[in-house]
């Protein structure tokens, strides 16, 4: 503190040098990641906004076209179809697949034996590569040689047209996607259930709370945070539906499974209309951001009301 001024100057300079060195070394180690993110994440994200307002040609380069990409996208008759299909998939996937992993996890967590078997068996489909599960189920849904029609025949029910039935095809995709993903979600719920403090249950029991009341007033509130997060993650995931319809139906029959990302893919890689594809990507981005904001607003309201 009382250092003579003659000594303070070099010491300050030393400190400055040391901190410069520390920062330089720090950024040297960050450099590969900074380059990777700049090139393959940050720059493309920003460029998405730019290309949306350009006519982009791989040979001729870019040309500003104002809002015409958005006009093109919004005037495309397939646009409302793709959004309706995507929302339908998202809703059906929530209906069929959202509560099931919660219930499964709660039940498995109560089992005194075989817990690790259940965990393994329910998780196994998640380990399969998505391409394998989709092709596998395409075979199950096959009208002539598929497993499902074989079962229907065996129990004397009329066979179905499955992927070729406009009214059934979306359900087929949802069932496959639930089969392929539910095990992962279940594991996350199991972990959340392990974190519920046992003294809560004991206290409730002393107060004479029945099984259902304990489930409703302890278990579910305790895992509500995880349930909300997984709800939003599932919505964001299913809204980006692509591989299932791309491989199984190519959007058919009669565009019944054409999803938003499939439409984006077609704009970009079938018609090489990169501007329109980027514009659709931007629209998708804002819709999903709206979902995330809604979700954050919801969680804040819920935590305030506690």
């Amino acid at each position, binding site marked *: 503190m009382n250092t003579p001024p003659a000594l303070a100057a070099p010491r300050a300079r030393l400190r400055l040098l040391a901190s410069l060195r520390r920062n330089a070394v720090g950024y040297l180690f960050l450099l590969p*990641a900074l380059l990777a*993110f700049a*090139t393959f994440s940050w720059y*493309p994200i920003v460029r998405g906004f730019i290309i949306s307002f350009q006519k982009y040609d791989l040979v001729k380069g870019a040309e500003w076209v104002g809002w015409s990409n958005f006009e093109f996208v919004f005037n495309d008759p397939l646009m409302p179809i793709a959004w309706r299909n995507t929302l339908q998939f998202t809703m059906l996937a929530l209906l069929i697949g959202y509560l099931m992993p919660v219930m499964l996890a709660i039940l498995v967590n109560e089992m005194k034996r075989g817990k690790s078997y259940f965990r393994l*068996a329910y998780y196994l489909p998640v*380990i399969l590569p998505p*391409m394998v599960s989709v092709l596998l189920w395409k075979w199950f849904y096959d009208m002539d040689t598929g497993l499902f029609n074989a079962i229907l025949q065996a129990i004397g029910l009329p066979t179905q047209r499955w992927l070729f039935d406009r009214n059934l095809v979306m359900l087929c995709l949802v069932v496959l996607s639930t089969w392929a993903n539910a095990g992962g979600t279940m594991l*996350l719920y199991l972990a959340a259930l392990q974190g519920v403090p046992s003294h809560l249950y004991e206290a409730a029991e002393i107060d004479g709370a029945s099984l259902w009341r304990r489930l409703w007033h302890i278990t579910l509130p305790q895992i509500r945070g995880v349930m909300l997060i997984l709800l939003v993650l599932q919505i964001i995931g299913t809204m980006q539906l692509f591989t299932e319809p791309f491989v199984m139906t190519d959007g058919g029959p009669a565009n019944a499974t054409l999803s938003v990302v499939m439409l984006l893919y077609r704009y970009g890689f079938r018609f090489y209309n990169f501007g329109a594809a980027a514009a659709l990507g931007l629209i998708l981005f804002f819709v999903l951001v709206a979902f995330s904001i809604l979700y954050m607003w919801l969680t804040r309201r819920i935590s305030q009301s506690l």
Partner: protein
Amino acid sequence: MARSLSVNLSWLRGHPSRPAQFDSNERTLISPLELRSPAKRAAYWLVFGTLVALTMTTLFPIYWMYSGALKDTGELIRMPPTLVPTEAHWENYLKAWDNLNYTRYFANTLILAFGALVIQLVVSTSAAFSLSKLKPAGGKVVLFLFLSTLMVPSMAYLIPAYLTVVSLPIANIPLIDTWWGVWLPGAASAFNIFVLKSFFDEIPQDLIDAANIDGAGAVRILTQIMIPLSRPVLAVVSIFTLIGAWKDFFWPFLVLSKVELQPIMVALWRLSARMQEPMNLIIAGLAIASTPPIILFLIFQKQIIRGITLTGLKG
């Protein structure tokens, strides 16, 4: 989001004295006492039986794949189908391997997976080390910029990401139909950095300071202190990276248009869409393609399940 991003990685350190949280036999919703009444016990076994029956819905389709591959074409399309192949044609697997040209596609997949592994480990480990221990000025902003990419749905910037690979900005190098076109974009993994940083944060700063006083440079601290202490978390990140690269379809499909460069998942899509191969061979191909991740999973089950549950990642 805060809750999902808070990671408890202490289990990875492997304290033998601390029983793993996941397998604890703490009491749950139902107390052991309640299960004493015969009616409740009956209900318990009913639920148990139902859960066992439900596992058939996940296991049977996988069995159907492996057993379907053993049938000959006639048996495969027979209605009603046979539950167990009347004659197991094990040679179908070998035939599928040859006919589908799997030697090449397997090799390609392995190149993609291990290349991704090496690049992601180097990039993520050094970045996480810097953010956790070297703490350069502005590190928090950088971390925020890394993590914020997790919030942007990848499909939303598919087109500009693709155009970046078509021709790298500034350098103007095309990466289409090169391994780098798949490897490099994968290196921008905010998730890896986040998990590794969380783990590094738990390694005491004193250790680093002591090494510093002894004259060890940053490289030595990383390679001789941080990495040896972080083997468990590095193993988890490695397994996830390998399995993830093995499963990947869409990006390699966009970037690798040359057949001789394609990984197994892209080849499977192309071969099944062409419908020239007999169906039992395609099914054998599906079974072969799922076997490496299943084996990896069975070997590293414990690490993977704990990794998933504690980091919130789903396969």
